[in-house]
Each structure stands twice: as C-alpha cells, then as structure tokens.
C-alpha cells in the first residue's frame, strides 16, 4: 500500500510533526509512506497530486492545506478512486475526512487567554501570516474576540516573513519595543515562531518588561521558554501526533473498504502554561 503525504509546508514544526507521526503510524500498519513537500508552492503541489494519482497511489494525505486550494487535483484523485484525507486542513466534498483542531477556535481561545492575563484591557502586538489560510482563521478568531473588549488595542502588527519567521519576528519586536516600550502589555502570535522571536527580543531589549507572550502550536522551543518562566506564558498545543493517529485510523478503515466516521473530526488542543508544566513563576 503506497500512501503519499503531500504538503507545501514541511519545514514548519506542526506540519513536520504530523507528517512524521503519520509516517510512523503508517509504517506500523505496513504502508509504504512517502513525504512530498513543495516549498510553499501550490502550483507545484497541484502537479505533485496529479503525479501521485498517475502513479496510482493507494491514498493521499494532505497536510496543512485547504483542499479548496487544489480543488481540481483533489477531485481528480477522488474520481480515480484514490481516497484523500486531510490533516489540519478543511472539510471538502472530495475529501474523505479532515482531522483538525479548529483554527478559528484556536484563535478565539488564544485571544481570550491573552486578554484575561493582561486584565481585560491594554495594548497588544499582533504577529500574523494571513497568506496561510489556517493561520488566517486564527486571526479572524482574534478579531471576533476583540469585539467584546473595546479596551484592548492592537498598537502594532507585523506580517511574519517565511522562511526565517523566528529571526524576522525578533527583529520586528526589537523595533516595536523601541517605539512602544512599556506600553505593550501582550504579544499575540498566530504561531509560535514569531512569539519565540518576540521573547528573544524582549529578553535582550527589555528584560524587566511585564508583557506577556502567547502563541499557538506547542513548539518545543516555546514550551521550553514557558518552563523557564520567561515572558512566554502560554501556547496552545494542537495534538499533532493524535491528529496523525486519528487520521491513520480513519484511513485504515477506508482502505479496508469502509467509510470515515465523519467528514470532520476535531482533536482538541491542550493549553501549555507554566502551571500545566508544573513550575511556579513569580
């Protein structure tokens, strides 16, 4: 059984974790799993799906991609009888199942958490990357929450450049700190990488600042920072290995001739905080 994992974002930590976990799960089941990455390029992603269909693979796993972004190719696979499942993507008529944490909900959760920790009012800095549809959903979550808190203001925002999001976030935060300094109460990072950059910047530029940084993904470096009682106070860890496991189970059913349990399965996210890691900071 040949299973192809296709994604444009293999070097991002969550995508990679899902891909590697899925590969391990698949190999446990005796599948031959190949990972194909297209370096942020959707045109190429479309081509690679076509190739995989032509190679008559047994199944396709799309990771971190909204199937609508490559709709025709997904439909092509579906028509060719090759099941497509999506991890951290979106529901789609031609996709058997999408296993995900709801990105919009993640954004809402993060925003609530951050705003709570700064006391319901104050200034926040936003790091975002709207070019990625999933990450963009989190931003929409923030917008939704902000409607409830008129006293919370975004005083600076930064579109994070990839590749190199950590250093880009760091340089941006250094500069934002120079302009706004102590006026910053919180940093909202749509994913952990720029949050890590923001923490590094704060450490070296304004170590005694009271600002709070929160992000999404459960990136190991971010978790480490949370454990070390830095400004980084929380990250929402999507349970990527779990998503991969659920995905593999679903795919196993489909390959055995069955059907997926539902067209969308949610794997809840876990909040990582100093408390949850068993450390007390003051």
């Amino acid at each position, binding site marked *: 059984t*040949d299973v192809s994992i296709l994604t444009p974002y293999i070097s991002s930590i969550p995508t990679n974790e899902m891909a590697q976990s899925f590969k391990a799960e698949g190999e446990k089941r005796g599948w031959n799993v190949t990972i194909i990455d297209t370096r942020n390029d*959707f045109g*190429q992603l479309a*081509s690679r799906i076509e190739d995989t269909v*032509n190679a008559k693979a047994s199944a396709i796993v799309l990771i971190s991609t*909204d199937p609508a972004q490559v709709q*025709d190719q997904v439909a092509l696979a579906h028509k060719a009888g090759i099941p497509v499942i999506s991890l951290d993507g979106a529901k789609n008529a031609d996709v058997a199942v999408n296993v995900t944490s709801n990105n919009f909900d993640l954004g809402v959760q993060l925003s609530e958490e951050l705003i709570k920790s700064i006391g319901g009012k104050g200034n926040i800095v936003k790091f975002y990357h709207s*070019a990625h*549809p999933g990450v963009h959903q989190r931003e929409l979550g923030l917008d939704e929450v902000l409607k409830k808190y008129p006293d919370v203001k975004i005083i600076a925002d930064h579109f994070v450049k990839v590749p190199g999001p950590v250093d880009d976030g760091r340089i941006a935060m250094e500069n934002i700190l120079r302009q706004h300094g102590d006026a910053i109460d919180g940093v909202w990072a749509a994913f952990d990488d720029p949050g890590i950059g923001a923490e590094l910047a704060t450490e070296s530029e304004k170590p005694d600042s009271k600002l709070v940084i929160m992000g999404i993904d459960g990136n190991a470096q971010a978790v480490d920072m949370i454990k070390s009682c830095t400004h980084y106070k929380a990250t929402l860890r999507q349970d990527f290995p779990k998503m991969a496991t659920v995905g593999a189970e679903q795919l196993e059913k489909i390959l055995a001739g069955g059907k997926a349990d539902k067209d969308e399965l949610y794997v809840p996210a876990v909040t990582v905080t100093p408390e949850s890691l068993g450390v007390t900071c003051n």
Partner: protein
Amino acid sequence: MTGLARQYGTLIALIVIIVAFSIASPGAFGTASNLINITQQMALLAIVAIGATMVMAVGEFDLSTAALVSFGGIFIVFLFKLGVPTPLACLIVLAAAGCFGAVSGYIVAKFEVLSFIATLAAGTIIGGVTFWLSDGATLFGDIPAGFRDLARGHALGIPTLTWWLIGVAIVVWLLLDKVEFGRRLYAIGGNREASRLAGVRIVPNTMVAFILCAMLAALVGMLLTGRIGSASPTGGGGYLLSAYAAVFLGMTAFREGEANVPGTLVGAGIIAVIGNGLTILGVSTFLQDIITGAIILAAVLVRRIGKGA
C-alpha cells in the same frame, strides 16, 4: 559522438532522462497520458521562463517576475470580487503588469541601472502592492467558472494549459527568431554599444521586452489562479529561480550563451520531467532535491567536459 554531445548536450540529457524514467516506471511514467500531463505541469513555469527569455535576449535580468505572477493572481481575484467581468478583468491585469514592466524597462535602459537591482526593487514594490490588494490573505471564491476553464480541462485530448504553452511558445519564438524586433533584441543583448551606433533604439526595444515579460508573468498568475482556484500573495515565489534555471539550461541547449525559446522549453522540460518522474517513483522530497540538482549539473556539464582548451 562528443561533437554531438557538445552540440545538443542538454536536449540529449532530456531524452536520456525520459528514457530512464520510462524504463524505471513503464506503467506510470512512460504512458502517453502521463507524458501529456507533464506538458501541463511544465506549462506555467515554461511560460514565465519564456518571458524571462526575452529579457535575457536583450542581456538583462528581470527579478520581478515572481512578484508579477503573484500580482496577476491576486489582482484578478480582486477584480472579480469587485464584479468586473472576466474579459475586462484579464485586460486590466495585463495592462497593469505591462505598466510595471514598462517602468522597469525604462529605468534599466534609460539610466543604465543594473537590471538585477532595479528589478529586485520593482519586485519588492509589486509584492507590497499585491499584499495590500489581498490584505496578505489567500483569496478564494468569486472566481467565475468560465475563467477557471481557461486553465482547466482539455481540448482535442490536450490539456488547456498545454495549449497556452504552445501558443505562447510559438508567438515568442516567432517574435525572437523571425520578426525584426527579435533581431534587434539579440543585437542589443550581443553588443549594446555597437547596436546603438548602428541605429538600433535601445530604450523602446528594451522596454517592450520587459513589458512582454511582465505580461506573461501576470498571465501565468491568472492561469495559476484558474488552475488551483485560489490566489496567494506569495503564490509566484516558486517561479523565480526555476524559471531562470530553465532559461540558463536552455542557453546551453542550442545556441551557446544566448537565451532562446526552444532551449528554454528543453530546460523547463528537464525540470518538469525530473519532478514528475521522481514523484512517481516515490522518491522523497529530500532525495528529489539532491537528484534534481545533480541532474541539472550533469546536463550542463555534458557539453563542457572534454571541450578542452
């Protein structure tokens, strides 16, 4: 034998690669339908590369092509969201891209600024405009099916995208090889000062090359949007280096040191075939990169080794 290798080394490399993959995977790679599909997969890259070929023919470089691909994709969806009908929207996008190209070409030709830095700056500006049009987000929806069909489906058993490639390749090949305009471009690229002294007008000719290159890049942006049904503000990023790889591979293919359309097609073909073949063989991305790099090196070295002093 070595003479042949020197003359047509890169073309031979392409053929060798195709034969090798066909033997390795006769059922999947070596089928007519897959080979036809490769032409569709290479189409967008090849069209960008053909545009770049014109700019390289005048001896310049356009680093803003990738930004223009993204721009084309985002701007057309932006116009669709405003309710502009398909034909008009396409014209507006092409005209806007043409304006960007005209400005780059004018700056490069008139002020003799190095095209590398001028078009890099132009690309940054165009990228900013693209982000601003889209708010940095991937745009979905509101794309008319009629527009999408320009980049989907088949006609006479050949994918529509392949038809686009055929059309563009023929037109630009005629322009460069048969029409007076092409003679002037190659003359400027060959020796700018000599051409100027012989009465060739540098500025307008260079500008037209940049304009056409920009329009083709924007066209690819639109076709890409049609193909995948969405537009990302960074969607064209992947086309820059590989398009130039195709042109440079092509420069070693037929006429030594001159960018030319048939060569560019061979170059784009090599890149597309390697990607397709290795995926079909189930080679992982990391290894694919290593093999792709090695094959490209081998393709350009074929001509060189044994050339002697």
